[in-house]
């Protein structure tokens, strides 16, 4: 049985079904979002220190950056 390949090691191919243009009047390229939106729709690739739990670190981020909500992508605990 072939072994499962890690998702970051697979090659991606894009299949084209149709072509169209996008209207610059609506929406925004993600990297050009204005500051408040950029943070509200942002992710931090954080290097977690030893000691606090992942949940505690996320709570610190919420406090320091004055956010209403935070989440994290997988618990890293002692």
């Amino acid at each position, binding site marked *: 049985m072939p*072994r*499962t*390949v*890690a*998702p*970051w*090691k*697979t090659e*991606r*191919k*894009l*299949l*084209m*079904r*149709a*072509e*169209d*243009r*996008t*209207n610059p009047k*609506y*929406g*925004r*390229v*993600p*990297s050009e*979002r204005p*500051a408040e939106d*950029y*943070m*509200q*729709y*942002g*992710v*931090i*690739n*954080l*290097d*977690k*220190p*030893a000691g606090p739990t*992942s949940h505690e*670190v*996320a709570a*610190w*981020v919420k406090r*320091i*950056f004055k*956010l*209403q*909500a*935070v*989440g*994290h*992508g*997988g618990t*890293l*605990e*002692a």
Partner: protein
Amino acid sequence: MTGVLPVTLGEATKVVQALLYSGKEYVCVMKLHADASEEQVKRVMSEFEDLVYQRPPLRASVKRQLRTRRIYYLDFLEIEGRNVLFKVGCEGGTYIRKLCYDVGEVLGCGAHMQELRRTRAGPFVEGDAVTLHDASYWFMEWEKNNDMKLLRRFVRPMEDALALIHKIYIRDSAVGAVCYGACLTAPGVLSLESDIVKGSLVAIMSLKGEAVALARAVADSEEIMRLEHGVVANVERVLMPRDTYPKCWKSGERKK
């Protein structure tokens, strides 16, 4: 434990489900409880590649039932006395502590996880992770002088978290409906990644590269390409605020 911990901010927290089940990579020090040769350790470790069975530990906040997890790769790095250094790539939710314990059992001498560092969580890698120390410094500098370059040093757009999720790119005219929770239908699809499997999680994207919604594919890539009409994906989580793009239907009128 230290290492890569993606922290989603505000509305971006909606993409957390895409990250939890995405792959992870760790560098680990396993301490053996008796001496063993390098060949013995390598041989036993090779038996753990691919599928493993694990029951979550007592302190985990998940249901403690036996479940399978995939080990993508288990690379022995070096051995020094009873310390074994290795790198492991695995599915989200794999307990490396249990892996070390089980390797010890098969070796016969027993072993435990001595130290762990996560080097990858989904698309996020150790190389560009920032410390909370640096992030808060840049945040304070940004609050002072409003230079976006400072924000960009430690915040990434939420779309970066979806880099490993299969994508479907749609027309502007379909974006409005999807934001209101409508299923994605064939005419709205412009392009899509190959290898989408029926039932898998996909990210619906605008041509500007904005994440519109997370959805479940109703068919494989090849079939979606062939479809003239009908549902292609069912929306699970809308990510883009409504009315970013105009609704392209009028209420009361029948769509042709």
